[in-house]
């Protein structure tokens, strides 16, 4: 058994900015519990003497000359925006009343 509870799933939804319904919280709790129980086996072989690998092929950081390039026009940048005033993205209030 893992420690996946409905409250934890609801909290993870807040962190991930997904407003989960109660039904989703219930189903996800059960599913995550089974998945986490299955994937927890990685800790069996991940002993302290094994180094971690983040990328499969060793890479060095890549730099380019600091000159403007590959830019979008404002129209291109706004073309897929759900809402804009023609020059900027338009959003609803940043802060709620309680803030």
């Amino acid at each position: 058994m893992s420690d996946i509870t409905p409250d934890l799933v609801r909290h993870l939804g807040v962190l991930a900015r997904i407003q989960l319904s109660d039904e989703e919280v219930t189903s996800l709790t059960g599913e995550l519990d089974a998945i986490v129980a299955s994937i927890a086996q990685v800790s069996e072989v991940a002993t302290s003497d094994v180094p971690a690998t983040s990328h499969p092929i060793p890479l060095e950081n890549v730099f380019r000359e600091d000159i403007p390039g590959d830019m979008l026009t404002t129209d291109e940048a706004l073309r897929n925006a759900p809402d804009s005033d023609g020059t900027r993205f338009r959003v609803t209030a940043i802060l709620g009343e309680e803030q």
Partner: protein
Amino acid sequence: MSDLTKLTAAELAASLASGEVSSVEATEAHLERIRAVDGDVHAFLHVNDAAIDVARGIDERRGAGEQLPELAGVPLAIKDVLVTTDMPSTSGSKILEGYMSPYDATVVRKAREAGLVALGKTNMDEFAMGSSTEHSAYGPTRNPWDLDRIPGGSGGGSAAAVAAFEAPLALGSDTGGSIRQPAHVTGTVGVKPTYGAVSRYGSIALASSLDQIGPVARTVLDAGLLHDVIGGHDPHDATSLAHDWPSFAAAAREGATGEVLKGLRVGVVRELTGTGFQASVEESFRASVALLEAHGAEVVEISAPHFEYATAAYYLILPAEASSNLAKFDSVRFGMRVEVPGGTVEDVMSATRDAGFGPEVKRRIILGTYALSAGYYDAYYGSAQKVRTLIQRDFADAFDKVDVIATPSAPTTAFRLGEKLDDPLAMYANDLATIPANLAGVPGISVPSGLASDDGLPVGIQFLAPAYEDARLYRVSAALEALLVDEWGAPLLDRAPVLNGEAR
């Protein structure tokens, strides 16, 4: 002219170059085929209205005496994970419905420059999360071999398009098997190149340390021809390798002679046989391995003791990276926005992401958020990264003893639509043979090995080679393909049922 759709890309390219066939004729034949069968197969999310105009442009250039690249005028299907300026790019998600990219993915740009004609965008599991295309927000694709079965995933649309003769070539993406497993279940060829060998610029990211773009085709040579077009360094992709790649088409042509098999050491992984594999899949695999042996290959049993932890590590690393990559869908700059009266930006964002993402995407984002949370990071994500090291060591040990590794491409043949949809762990188990290559960055290919003796459905054999040795995969699989097609008397897809295009 409907038989134009039966030609391989190499044959079609030769007919185009000789002037025997025009690109307009070839493109029209494929569009006609799409109209006839895609109502059943549903490989395409979007068909390109401008394809004929593009084809006409190629014909005019060729007519004017211009020397064009080999594949110029050949139609191409494009997985919807790749962004395109002239067609919507949704990655199979409602949250990106109608999204029009301001730029082309590098592989799309290269394909256009090589004169390939974009036929349309192919269906996929939402954000490439799945093994069946059932997680597409736009409905599943069906397997041309049996319309009640899955075409694999996430790239089921690209594989089905090629298997149903709707396109000779397609582009795919492979994060844990999304090119190779669909190839396996549809009797087609799919290649996951070495990590970094093909640019991911303009590929809607799933898990950045695993994603790789590659070719989908009906023959090994055709895959090599497309790989030659899309491969190579791209300054727009920081993980792109600066490496002098050989021609993979040349490797396939050379391999077809069978010379490569003489003395070739083929490793069979002890841990990827037996339990968990459908008996008929393993039987087909063993028959192909025996055929290689009969033609001069030396078969060596090898052990990869950490492969059994690969799927678990993958389902920690992938959700962790995906939860980060998908944070960009914030309802502000692009994509869906749900109205929340009086709501703040954060309320709108949370409601949008709930409405816009499907169940599997939410499952993986929540799982990834959990794996990356304070207190769990070391136990989960950190451990998974260590498993990655152990799997790389398994590969290194194996490639000390053998030239290529051979495995069944997936544990079962195509399962029925709906069969595993409500059981995430059963769905994840489909990728157990393909995931190790993504974790280690090595290249892999799936080529048809035959039909399963019990259900008559296609089976694929997977070859894996050390990083940078993609050409070796093309040589070896072209050799096996030539032997098998000779044995069968015709390509495997000739035995696929006829799609009549009538309403089911």
